[in-house]
């Protein structure tokens, strides 16, 4: 179109390339961090390069990996548990009115209970076992997954169900070939959301109920007023989460939504 050709070349480049757009977004974020670091005291908010330097020091000293591994493991199991429970409930609620009425109060209650309450309760029940953060994560996250999946299944095109019935397709085949693929965009959205929540809940739970992990180290740093170290731990985990997003979730998503037209896919890519 004539209008796009008249735009500034730099703006066109940013708009046209997905990776350039991501990089541009990150640079803006770093610039904002830099600007804030000039305003706040250095021990409260260090500059980005100081944080990265400190984080690298944690990696080099060998402290980072065992704690990151523990948190990741707890996040992984919490995420798996909440996804399984959330997807199962969401599908049932989407395809069956009785299930929807039966489970809605549980989902609403689950949404309203603060994560910190579950963290406290599971710590009392499970002590310092891995179960405390994992169960707290499952209980906090599953309602968000269930609601997303429920809405995704409800969004299913009724004509496709009628077509399937006309050809005598079994409910099992419909679930596998029609309902779940139809809800896939919502599933991905809920998985991404679930993963993000899971790691936050695990971190909170680790403050209460763990002797390792990023949450535990954050608390330790806070107790000895090493705020810059807290920033370094948070940065390390952000890098890991970004790695999971762009290294695992995005490629899977791209493969699953291969059927979408390129132009259409660009909207979610």
């Amino acid at each position: 179109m004539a209008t796009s050709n008249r735009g500034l070349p730099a703006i066109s480049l940013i708009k046209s390339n997905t990776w350039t757009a991501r990089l541009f977004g990150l640079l803006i974020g770093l610039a904002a961090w830099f600007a804030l670091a000039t305003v706040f005291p250095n021990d409260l908010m260090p500059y980005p390069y100081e944080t990265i330097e400190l984080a690298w020091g944690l990696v080099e000293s060998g402290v980072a990996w065992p704690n990151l591994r523990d948190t990741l493991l707890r996040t992984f199991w919490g995420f798996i548990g909440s996804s399984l429970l959330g997807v199962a409930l969401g599908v049932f609620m989407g395809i069956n009115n009785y299930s929807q009425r039966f489970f809605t109060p549980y989902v609403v209650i689950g949404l309203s209970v603060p994560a910190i309450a579950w963290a406290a309760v599971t710590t009392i029940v499970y002590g310092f076992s891995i179960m405390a953060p994992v169960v707290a994560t499952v209980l906090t996250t599953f309602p968000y997954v269930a609601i997303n999946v429920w809405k995704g299944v409800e969004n299913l095109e009724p004509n496709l169900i009628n077509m399937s019935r006309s050809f005598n397709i079994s409910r099992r085949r419909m679930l596998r070939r029609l309902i779940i693929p139809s809800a896939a965009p919502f599933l991905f959205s809920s998985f991404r959301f679930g993963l993000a929540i899971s790691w936050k809940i695990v971190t909170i739970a680790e403050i209460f109920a763990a002797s390792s992990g990023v949450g535990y180290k954050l608390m330790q740093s806070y107790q000895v007023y090493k705020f810059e170290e807290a920033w370094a731990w948070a940065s390390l985990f952000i890098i890991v989460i970004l790695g999971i997003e762009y290294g695992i979730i995005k490629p899977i998503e791209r493969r699953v939504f291969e059927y979408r037209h390129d132009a259409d896919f660009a909207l979610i890519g």
Partner: protein
Amino acid sequence: MSSDMAKTDNENAVNLPGEESGGAASIHIENLGKTFDTAEGTEEVFSDINIDIEPGTFVCLLGKSGSGKSTMLNIVSEVLEPTEGRVRFEYPSGEEDVTLGHVFQDPRLLPWNTCVNNIEYVHENNPNYTDEVAKRSLDLVGLSEHYDKYPTQLSGGQRQRVGIARALSTDPGVLLMDEPFSNLDEITAENLREELLDIWSRLNKTVFFVTHDMTEAIQLCDRILMLGKGRIYADLENPLERPRRMDSDEFLKFRQKAVDKFHSIED
């Protein structure tokens, strides 16, 4: 035949899915009635409908919007239960377990499946299914180049062809079609009508075709059933020889007669 689909079939002599089948089945609609419960009470859509359709016939059910033709097709398709009466299908051999093929107004394809996989989807209970069945059906409708394409990569006409291929792949004794060309532009629709007639003439299938378009009905059908005010008020045999030219005097004359009959229900 000017279409791509016809060229593909004629030139490559495609092995058609129905070649070794029992062929066409007859349809027997007996004392059929349907009512719906509404807030105002019970509403009758139609009652006491009796129709016998011979195997291999191309029959159109014509009616205005709201006349109940889709309801009747849904009952014939076994998607809706009738309030009274029944619908029977029967092969000439006496076998009553007849496979029905469905073609809808919109193609109703799974967007995340390729053309081949869309056809494979409806073969859940067919132990003999291989992708060759799907490919032969796609060949039949001129989509040999599009086996692995997704519906979003096809035009509206091509998507409807996949819908027709899917129905034919099940080797149906009766093909049920619900205004399959009404969402297409006229040129595409016209091509598809010719191609459908070509397939029908070679596959020997009974077709039950719902439409509100008189010209389409006359072009396609051997017999036109007009539904209105809860009954079949006209049952016309189409006297025109095939192929039918829409600008011929005979076509226009019969069309006028059918139109007069169609509007007679309001007199």
